[in-house]
């Protein structure tokens, strides 16, 4: 299997973590839109989560005041981090999957299974984007505000649509590369 942890350490012996846009499983497999975009966004989300939480701790110690409302932003950043990172993981084929049985198959059926898996991933995130869009429309129409900060809820829900669409695009890109490779 390839795990989140396995992938982390996969390139460790070579001394460099994922170098740029190459997939450890298939070095020829380079998307045209650089994955650096997702990387930078995911790193920024991670850094912001840490800074907000740390600021919270410091402020609580100095003033006894609580910044609990910032939880809303941290939790939103968690959603962004996941979906953006997932887009990169789909492009690089780093998602956890059981390869044990598939690897016993000859090349052609194995490739067919891989294409099916990617097509299903694309369908799943199309569904998420579509129903996320309907959520966004509801939030927009009824002017829902967030419970913590009181800002319009659609400012959060739109990102589920945008980032799910980004995942669909990444999956489609990889599907195309694997298909063309034959």
């Amino acid at each position: 299997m390839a795990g989140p942890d396995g992938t982390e350490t996969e390139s460790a012996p070579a001394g460099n973590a994922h170098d740029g846009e190459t997939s450890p499983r298939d070095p020829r497999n380079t998307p045209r839109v650089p994955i650096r975009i997702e990387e930078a966004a995911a790193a920024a989300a991670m850094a912001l989560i840490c800074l907000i939480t740390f600021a919270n701790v410091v402020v609580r110690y100095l003033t006894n005041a609580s910044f609990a409302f910032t939880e809303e932003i941290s939790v939103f950043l968690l959603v962004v981090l996941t979906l953006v990172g997932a887009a990169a993981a789909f492009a690089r084929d780093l998602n956890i999957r059981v390869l044990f049985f598939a690897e016993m198959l000859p090349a052609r059926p194995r490739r067919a299974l891989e294409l099916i898996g990617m097509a299903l991933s694309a369908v799943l995130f199309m569904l998420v984007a579509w129903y996320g869009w309907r959520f966004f429309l509801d939030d927009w129409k009824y002017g829902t505000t967030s419970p913590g900060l009181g800002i319009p809820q659609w400012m959060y829900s739109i990102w589920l649509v945008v980032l799910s669409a980004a995942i669909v695009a990444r999956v489609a890109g990889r599907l195309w590369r694997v298909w063309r490779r034959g």
Partner: protein
Amino acid sequence: MSWLLFGGFLVLLVAGVPLATALGITGALVVLAANLGAMSIASNVYSSLAKYPLLALPVFILAGMIFERAGVAAKLVAFVSALVGPRHGAQAVVAILVCMFLGGISGSGPADAAAVAMVMLPSMTRQGYPPAFSASIIAAAGSTAILIPPSIAFVIFTVLVPQVSVPALFAAGVIPGLLAGLSLLVPSTIFAWKYGWGANDATERRGLLRALKDASWGLAAPIIILGGLRTGAFTPTEAAVVAVFYGFFVGTVVYRTLDVRGLYRVLVDSAEISAVVMLIIACAGIFAHAGSTLGAFDAMAKAMLGVTQEPHLMLAMIMLLLLAAGMMLDAASIFLIFLPILTPIVNAFGWNMTWFAVLMTMNMAIGQFTPPMAVNLLVTTRIAGVGMESTVRWVLWMVVSMLGALALVAAFPQLALWLPERLGY
């Protein structure tokens, strides 16, 4: 519908479809086919992720990685080597202890095993330990990282089972984690004596105090993480963030091993690994919604309860099932898949959920180094440059000894529950 949910998922899983997709798509199809509210497909993705307790997961992953990249492992090896001294099998003992200690900083088995393997394999090979043995012992000892707090697996468990708290579960993991790690001393010492490894141990050892001073920055990390949790001053997420900033300080100012580029890389890599795990959590949200609305999980639990009403037999069955699953998948995925089905069973027998969490995780730990699909072994054998089949004659004994530790915790729940009770959780 229930058969479509479980059957569809299983078929896709075996076919090598990404686990997140397999969970999400079967869940979504069942939601659409059975009219369970199509909007829930999107809302479950969002609400499964937008949870404050889940914030601890990426931050603990980041903290573990910062310490790993800062080079804490090498300093710990130097210190523990000085502590153990030259003797038969000393290096194997050092490897086990350092793995366990790193487990107290990071919560991920393969990362832990990789860090120690990179540092220790060359010196162990020089002293006559076969690389296949070294890879086995480090892979096995590295697996204790998911038991010894902080543990990513435990964080996920508490997100799924909110009545168990993170500090309580972390405390519950301490003694079983130590037992699991120390159980490995038995086969490694026997082998070392039998084959005379480490008899010509001529490694230069620095003075104990000097090594202690170097390693003290790393040695302090678990105290900071667990101490903050213990006093109740920090939430788990905050404790993890404090560890991140401490690790950042150690890496940039003290050891000077991390530069700006390195820091960026740590942020990217930890974010991506977190995203892979959390995507499964998000998609499992769709699956869980479909399964619980249909009553499929309860039906499955009933079916299992129909097989036997005998608690010991049931527990043994569950352990076997989890052990097999643990060889294929990581702890997070297994919790997401099995907990909805196992929770009703745990409640039916009146088992303690904290104890059960520890038992489940011990199975996952053993699965991490049981061939042929062991993640930890995959990592260490690659570093050692040996095939996984060459480790079988060694690693199976380690599986047996850790199964012994598992049996102890299963037979005496107090091994897990004493410490959290003592600490008043």
